[in-house]
C-alpha cells in the first residue's frame, strides 16, 4: 500500500502567463512525481498539487524563485488518510 507520510498539498495561485507556463512544464514532467489535483491552469483558479515529502523543499524553492504564490492546503496527507481509515473501520464495526 502506498503511504503519503509527509506529503503536502500546496494550493498554488498563478498570477501570470509565466507562472502558468512553469506549471504546465512541471505537469508534463511525470518524473517530477507531482500529483496535480487540478488539470489545466488559469490565473482565475488555484491549482492544488500533492507534493511528495522528498520533493517538498525543492518544489517550494522553485515556487519562491519564480515568485509563484502558494499556501499549504493539507499539511500531511497521510494524517488525513489515517483519520479516514479509522473512521471507516469504526463504521464497519
Amino acid at each position, binding site marked *: 500500500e502506498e503511504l503519503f507520510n509527509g506529503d503536502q*498539498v500546496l494550493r498554488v495561485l498563478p498570477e501570470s502567463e509565466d507562472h502558468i507556463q512553469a506549471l504546465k512544464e512541471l505537469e508534463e514532467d511525470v518524473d517530477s512525481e507531482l500529483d496535480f489535483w487540478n488539470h489545466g491552469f488559469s490565473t482565475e483558479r488555484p491549482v492544488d498539487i500533492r507534493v511528495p515529502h522528498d520533493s517538498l523543499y525543492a518544489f517550494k524553492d522553485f515556487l519562491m524563485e519564480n515568485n509563484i504564490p502558494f499556501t499549504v492546503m493539507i499539511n500531511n496527507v497521510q494524517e488525513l488518510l489515517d483519520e479516514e481509515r479509522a473512521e471507516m473501520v469504526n463504521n464497519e464495526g
Partner: protein
Amino acid sequence: LERKTKSFNFAAYHNLETIYAFMDTLVASHPSLISKVNIGSSYENRPMYALKFSTGGVSRPAIWVDAGIHAREWVTQASAVWIANKIASDYGVDPSVTSLLGQMDIYLMIVTNPDGYAFTHTSNRMWRKTRSVNAGSSCRGADPNRNWDAGFGGPGASKDPCSDSYHGPYANSEVEVKNVVDLIKGHGNFKSFISIHSYSQLLMYPYGYTCTDVPDKSELHAVGTAAIKELTSLYNTRYQVGSICKIIYQASGGSIDWTYNIGIKYSFAFELRDTGFYGFLLPANQILPTAEETWLGLKYIMGYVRDHPY
C-alpha cells in the same frame, strides 16, 4: 440478517463490495421500480452495474447519471449511493420525482470505474485512472474522461501513459468507457447525460475539447444556472457555471462532449464540493450535505429535461 437500506450508513465511505451489496438491497426493496443492469465488465473483470429506475414502458426517454469515473473522487460514489436511495424513497412521495419517473427512466451508475475504486481502497488512495496495462510502459491505466471519441488525443490530455490525464491508445480503448458507450448507443433514447466528479464546485456543459460555444449554449447555461440556484439554496455552497473549456481548461476526450455530439443535448458535468481544504479527502461528515445539495441541482435538471422534450 435482514438487510435494509434504512440501516445503511450513508454518512460513511464504503468499499466496492459494500456498495454493490447496497445496490442489491435497494433493488430488493423496490423491485417494481429498480433493476440492476449489468453493462459489462471492467478491465479486471469486475461487473459494472447501472441502477435503472423505471415505471414501465419500452425505450422510454431516459436520463443517465454516472459517478466515480475518477476513482479517488470518493464523495461522488458516496453521493450517488445516497441519491439512489433518495430517488427510490421519493418516488410516490415527491410529485416531481413521481412525475419524472412516470415519463422517463433514470440510469444511475454509482461506480463507473470499479477497478480504480477498488485500487483506491487497497493500494493507492490517490488513484484516478483505470487499471489497464499499457503496452511498453510500466505505468498502468488511462484517464477514462480523456478516452471518449470527442476530440480524442487533442489538447488537455497527455500521451504519456504515466500521466494522470493519459488519454489511452485510442478512443474507447478503456472497456469501462466502451461499456457505457455501447449502452448509450444501444438504448438510443437518452435525453440527458450527467457525469459527477469532484471537486471545486462547478457545473459544466460542453465543450471541453474546443473553446467554441455549443449551439445550445444559452439554454444549457440558463439550465445550469437555475440548477445551481437550487443547489446553493441548501447550504449556500458557491458554484460556477460554464463550458468546460471556458471555466476550467481545454480537455479533450471527455464524456459529455461525446454525448452532446451524438445528440444528447442536456449533457452536464458536476464537480462537487470540497469545502476548500480537503480536495479528494473530503471528510465523511460532508457526504450527506454534499449529496443533499447535489440532489437539488440534479432534480432541477431532470425536471427541466422532462418538461422540454426534443
